[in-house]
């Protein structure tokens, strides 16, 4: 008979009351998705920095944390804020997300340097690499929405709340992102 898994909110409360092991369990659960959220949007060193800043913020906020929804929602809200702060500090422009479908030419251009094999098919490993490259080339807002949906596994409503966008806007970004990724890969599948 399996034991009920301690919730993230309970782990936060336990950590805030001095149980250091609870933080370790919480970290173990979320380190991967949070790291990849940064890593898909930033170069490795910057992703490392943002990742650490996020967890230090969480450690600092732990005594004041009051569960009012899903912990993941709270965690990725912090992550989104860290990312935005990083962009502001590095004066990097967040490219406007054209919520319009990219043309087939755009997609073809994105794939131009990934030549398929002689039989026109990419091996599975190459396909994965191509997918990551395609995600990296999505406009910022589409990419972030897609990562929050499929990496953080958040609902479109939660993504809308985190990014301060309308629900319809988020659905639109998700649709365009998926369409670009599919089109980009299907040429080779």
């Amino acid at each position: 008979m399996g034991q009920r898994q301690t919730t993230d909110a309970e782990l936060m409360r336990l950590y805030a009351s001095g149980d250091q092991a609870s933080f370790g369990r919480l970290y173990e659960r979320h380190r991967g998705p949070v790291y990849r959220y940064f890593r898909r949007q930033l170069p490795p060193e910057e992703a490392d920095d943002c990742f650490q800043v996020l967890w230090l913020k969480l450690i600092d906020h732990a005594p004041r944390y009051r569960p009012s929804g899903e912990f993941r929602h709270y965690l990725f809200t912090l992550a989104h804020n860290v990312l935005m702060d990083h962009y502001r500090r590095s004066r990097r422009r967040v490219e406007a997300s054209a919520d319009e479908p990219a043309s087939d030419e755009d997609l073809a251009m994105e794939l131009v340097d990934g030549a398929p094999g002689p039989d026109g098919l990419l091996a599975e490993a190459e396909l994965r690499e191509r997918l990551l490259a395609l995600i990296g080339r999505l406009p910022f807002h589409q990419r972030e929405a897609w990562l929050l949906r499929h990496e953080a596994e958040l609902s479109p409503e939660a993504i809308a709340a985190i990014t301060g966008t309308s629900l319809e806007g988020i659905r639109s970004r998700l649709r365009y992102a998926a369409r670009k990724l599919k089109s980009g890969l299907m040429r080779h599948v």
Partner: protein
Amino acid sequence: MSDPNDPMDGVERRLVELYRAADTEQPSAEIDRRILRAAREASTARRRRWPLAGLATAAAAVLALALLLRPAPEPARPTAADLASPAPAAESARAPAPPPVPSGDAALALARSVRPVPTPAPAAAASYATPGCPEPHPLPAGAVIRPSADGIEVADRNGDVRFTLRCRDGRWEREPGAGAAPADADPR
């Protein structure tokens, strides 16, 4: 997490599966160590701060409680001597508490020197007691007492000594004075 407004077709589902298989990147072990160490240190620092904050709060609470429960000052009760010849309030307030009871001559000497001990008495009559003879001896209304060679003299308002009281072995001895009235004979 399924959303009816966000349907995924078979290709998109395959795309997501491919992504999950493709992207398994994790933070380095060094980063893990740094973050877990920071969490430990923050937790320890918080625990160190708590006892101090807790002690300060507890001390403040005890002080507040002590102030709340402090009894109001009671008015001093009048003594037999006060009834006989009113003494200044300040002097009465300064009167020290009676010391432990000695025996013999020392007790007698002490009985002369100490102020009368307040005793519960009927409202109509005052009484007199000392540490050597704690049983109160009744005094006539308006009586004036003054120390004598071996006890106290009890006089009326005119200054005529009605009787003398002596404390012997814990009992009162009463001897009629020059101005004694028949009622001043020792009732015992």
